[in-house]
């Protein structure tokens, strides 16, 4: 009797398990094996990408610090100290206080006595020595006026400068252009930082693309055979993209760990000076920066290899 072919019925779960195992084998295991086999040729891409990602992480942290510094500066610039003249009657102070409080551009007005001004000065490095060198309390009473918008600080300064309650010689803390200068410097640094990051990104993409191109050329025969036996496009291209992702992920992990380590080392070595120079950088922020560096590495690695595969691997 001739043989009869019976179509076996397999459960859906078993088929899914087989498909997943095959996809894992051809896409991920194959890519990992090829990555380790070509580790020598991938090493330059890995090291340059690690360096670039590390620089990106550090530039990112510096940028975050500068952003915080700018926020501090903006906060200080929106606070105007209106200095009272010596012996000013409280009625004049109250009148000025009422005028400022009723102004729509003003967010808040606080009266600071001479004693409070002295106490505050003693918190600022250098000023206690100045205070100790003079007889009595050299710091005047003031109205601390917080404006809603920094742009209104000049108008408020003009408004109070000629008031009878205000010290004629040193009327306010307003420094025309100081904030704008800081802003200009920070803007310049921000633009330079972004340009630097874009350049690093471009270099990282180019380096990874070249490494994947080299991998494609070294496995040209294998790719051709896979294509000729009917392997779908994703099965031919996928391993190269995964290889790029492995390179990017490893670079990102190493660069992220170093970024995190450097930030934590800085915090541990000199907590006070670190807070002054890099305001806002905490362990959490450093961990987030490390995670961003890792994800960026993964994205850059897989993205650039995808571009390379599309460009160098014909169907």
């Amino acid at each position, binding site marked *: 009797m001739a043989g009869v072919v019976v179509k076996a019925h397999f459960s859906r779960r078993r*088929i899914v398990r*087989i*498909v997943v*195992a*095959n*996809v894992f084998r*051809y896409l991920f295991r194959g890519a990992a094996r090829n990555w380790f086999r070509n580790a020598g040729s991938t090493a330059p891409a890995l090291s340059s990408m690690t360096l670039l990602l590390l620089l990106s992480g550090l530039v990112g942290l510096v940028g975050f610090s500068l952003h915080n510094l700018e926020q501090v500066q903006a906060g200080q610039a929106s606070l105007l100290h209106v200095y009272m003249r010596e012996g000013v009657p409280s009625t004049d102070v109250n009148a000025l206080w009422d005028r400022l409080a009723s102004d729509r551009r003003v967010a808040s007005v606080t009266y600071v006595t001479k004693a409070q001004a002295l106490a505050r000065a003693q918190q600022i490095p250098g000023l206690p020595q100045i205070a100790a060198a003079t007889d009595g309390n050299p710091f005047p009473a003031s109205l601390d006026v917080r404006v809603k918008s920094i742009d209104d600080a000049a108008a408020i300064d003009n408004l109070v400068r000629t008031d009878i309650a205000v010290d004629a010689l040193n009327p306010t803390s307003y420094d025309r252009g100081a904030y704008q200068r800081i802003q200009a410097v920070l803007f310049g640094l921000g633009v330079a930082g972004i340009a630097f990051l874009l350049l690093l990104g471009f270099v990282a993409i180019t380096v990874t693309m070249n490494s994947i191109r080299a991998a494609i050329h070294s496995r040209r*025969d*294998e790719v*051709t*055979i*896979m*294509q*000729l*036996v*009917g*392997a*779908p*496009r994703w*099965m031919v291209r996928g391993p190269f993209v995964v290889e790029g992702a492995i390179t990017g992920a490893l670079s990102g992990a190493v660069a992220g760990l170093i970024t995190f380590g450097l930030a934590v080392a800085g915090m541990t070595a000199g907590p006070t000076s670190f807070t002054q120079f890099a305001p806002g950088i905490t362990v959490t922020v450093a961990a987030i920066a490390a995670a961003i560096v890792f994800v960026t590495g993964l994205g850059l690695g897989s993205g650039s290899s995808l571009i390379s595969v599309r460009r160098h691997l014909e*169907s």
Partner: protein
Amino acid sequence: MRPILEFAGVTRAYGPRLALDDVHLAMVPGELAFLVGPSGAGKTTLLKLINRELRPTSGEIWVDGIAAHDLKASRVSQLRRHVGVVFQDFKLLPRLTAKENVALALQVGDLRISDDEASERAMDALEAVGLGDRGGAFPQQLSGGQQQRVAVARAVVGQPRLLIADEPTGNLDLETSWQMMDLFADIAAFGTAVLIATHNVEIVTRLQRRVMTLVQGRLVRDQPAGRTGRMAWLASS
């Protein structure tokens, strides 16, 4: 019987030069045919058009009902699962064993095939080509004839409707070449259409199968099986 392969007015140009010029042909399941012609006649181009390694400049190519002439790049792999290909240089993956090379062709075509099933079917195919005991050998551990048999096993393991072979005996001695031809005849007997491009005069004349002759890109002769006459051009090619 519905043709498994059909060329209708197919032309393929490389720049100003015509590699194939208005070719019409058809093959039915179970047919074994030779494609002959001098070097540069267009044999390899014709085979590459079947497997969609090339696109025709004009005309239509139908392979098992698939319009190969109009196929998107993303769907080429589907066509190739209907066509088994044997190359002169075998094209085996050196890092895989004979069995793995054969199983690979199965699994890349259908991810639902388990390792056990692929392995079993690959061994069946290797046994069919007389290499049941060499499944664990790597290509470099096999002779040229054995490597070509592995390539044939890989080409037929997915049970394609059409098998094309480009100079499959080009790197083999005469005895091994005859063994290969017996193998192709067996494959055709099971219903697969087999098209072999070759320069081997002795094989073509002795086997008395259908012979299609290409000269300068034109199909100048199509002799049915059993009526293969003298082919003067072969002596001069």
